């Protein structure tokens, strides 16, 4: 009971903020009389969402699948790869810059290659999501593991812990707060990556959100573009929320972030 109450109390602020923003937006659109193809009102978008709900939800499910799988792949690669890079100085000096360069390759430009390598459809969207999401996880993991308290490292060193053991029992738990931040950033990017991937991968009967967006843009249906974006944000936000919950669950008992937020909310 307590925690349900608490949950509702925690939701008040974000819901208020979103509601406030939507109302301001609605009023701004109504006052300025800007045409719908430039900036549709939230109300118009809501109507579109309702009217096209079948198409949007079907698309969202596909996009969510691609984004989620891509995100998981990126998380695993980012955390494991980042840990290896952090642990082995040679890799840090050689692979980290390489990973950085890969991060800077604009996906839209290589997406056609992805299609050729992976074929049309889901695999390409997954790969695109994973490619853009992996770097933040990698960077945050490296940062987190390189910043582990040197005193605790010495402790493990002394007891002759193997690299693997030290990673499992020290580096990984100690860097969870940093990794969670990386995952938070990656959650949003994975959705964007999936959508960009969908721009180049196939679309059959049930079009994913990326295709819905492209089609709507071509037809100057800005309201539908926004409706699809809203749904993609919902997908991303679910991923983000899941990561945040996981992070809270793992660190709230011991990490400074929870102490500091308690102190402040007093």
């Amino acid at each position: 009971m307590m925690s349900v109450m608490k949950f509702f109390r925690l939701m008040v602020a974000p819901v208020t903020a979103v509601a406030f923003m939507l109302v301001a937006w609605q009023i701004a659109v109504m006052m300025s009389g800007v045409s719908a193809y430039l900036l549709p009102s939230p109300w118009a978008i809501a109507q579109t969402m309702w009217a096209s709900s079948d198409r949007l939800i079907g698309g969202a499910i596909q996009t969510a699948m691609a984004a989620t799988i891509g995100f998981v792949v990126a998380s695993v690669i980012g955390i494991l790869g980042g840990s290896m890079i952090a642990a082995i100085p040679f890799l840090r000096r050689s692979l980290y810059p390489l990973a950085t360069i890969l991060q800077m390759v604009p996906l839209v430009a290589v997406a056609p290659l992805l299609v050729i390598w992976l074929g049309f459809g889901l695999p390409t969207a997954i790969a695109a999501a994973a490619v853009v999401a992996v770097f933040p996880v990698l960077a945050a993991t490296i940062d987190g593991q390189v910043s582990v308290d040197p005193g605790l490292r010495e402790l493990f060193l002394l007891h002759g812990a193997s690299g693997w053991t030290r990673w499992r029992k020290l580096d990984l738990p100690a860097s969870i707060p940093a990794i969670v931040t990386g995952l938070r950033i990656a959650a949003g990017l994975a959705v964007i990556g999936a959508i960009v991937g969908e721009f180049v991968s196939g679309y059959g009967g049930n079009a994913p959100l990326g295709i819905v967006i492209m089609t709507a843009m071509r037809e100057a249906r800005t309201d539908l573009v926004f409706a699809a974006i809203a749904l993609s944000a919902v997908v991303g936000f679910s991923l983000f929320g899941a990561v945040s919950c996981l992070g809270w669950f793992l660190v709230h008992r011991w990490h400074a972030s929870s102490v500091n937020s308690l102190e402040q909310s007093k």
Partner: protein
Amino acid sequence: RSSPNEAALTPITLQLNWVPEPEFGGMFAALQDGLYVAEGLAVDIRKGGAQVPCAQLVASGQVPFAIVSGEEVLTLRARGGEIVALFATFQRNPMGFMLHKNNPIDSLEALWKSSSTIGLDPGMPFVAILNEKYGGKNLKMVPYSGAMATFLVTPDYVQQCFITAEPVEAKLRSVDAKVFSVEDVFNPYTAVIATNETYLKENRATVEAFVRATKQGWIRYLANPQKYNPAIVALNPSMTLEAMNIAADLERTLIVPTSGEAGIGQMTMDRWRSLEQQLVDTKVIPVSMSIEEAFFTADPSAAQAP
């Protein structure tokens, strides 16, 4: 008309929807030969790209003139955009499907009933029409990213194309292609110069002068494209002069109406009406609108042509 001094020229911008190519040859000819200046206009031609939202830019007044396609004019008007068509460069739809020469498929209908993989922009209006006509359930549609690489290396791949552009490029890369035009099922005006409704009301003379000079430019360009293409190549080094010369030859029949050069750029109510009907039928736009306001014939000499 007296030749006005530089300072008195009216500055205007024309936003292209693609990089400089022969499909905009008339505008560059008018620029090169000083036809715009003679009309008192200082024209800035802006390159564009696949993602530049030309119709929206013109409707929102960001630019006075832009190149758009016919269906874009009507769809945007249906959403409240103040866009008006002025001049239709392509009288016949240059859009088509490009296949490898030795692909056994021999017609648009056969293509649509096959199980080919076909690259095309999502939301192309003629897809719904073709689906209606031929089914198309087995087709595997994939988005066309603007990159031709897939076509060049995949023998049974099919993609959308501009008859004057991609097939020429493919040929220059030693890949022979055949093309099925979609003209017969969907034939909107293409490479249409459009302006903003308000701008038109307030600058009628400028608009008329611009259209006049452009038309003259096209007459000159089509007569001697080799004279103007080098300047276009300079602006777009990614396309060879050779390709441009070939493209200029190919586009002539699509631009010059049967009535002859005097009709270049012309638009008729019937053509706009049938386009509108197709868009309503395929549910791209909701209801019919007043087509009279969707286009403006600045050059009455061309208006009556069939």
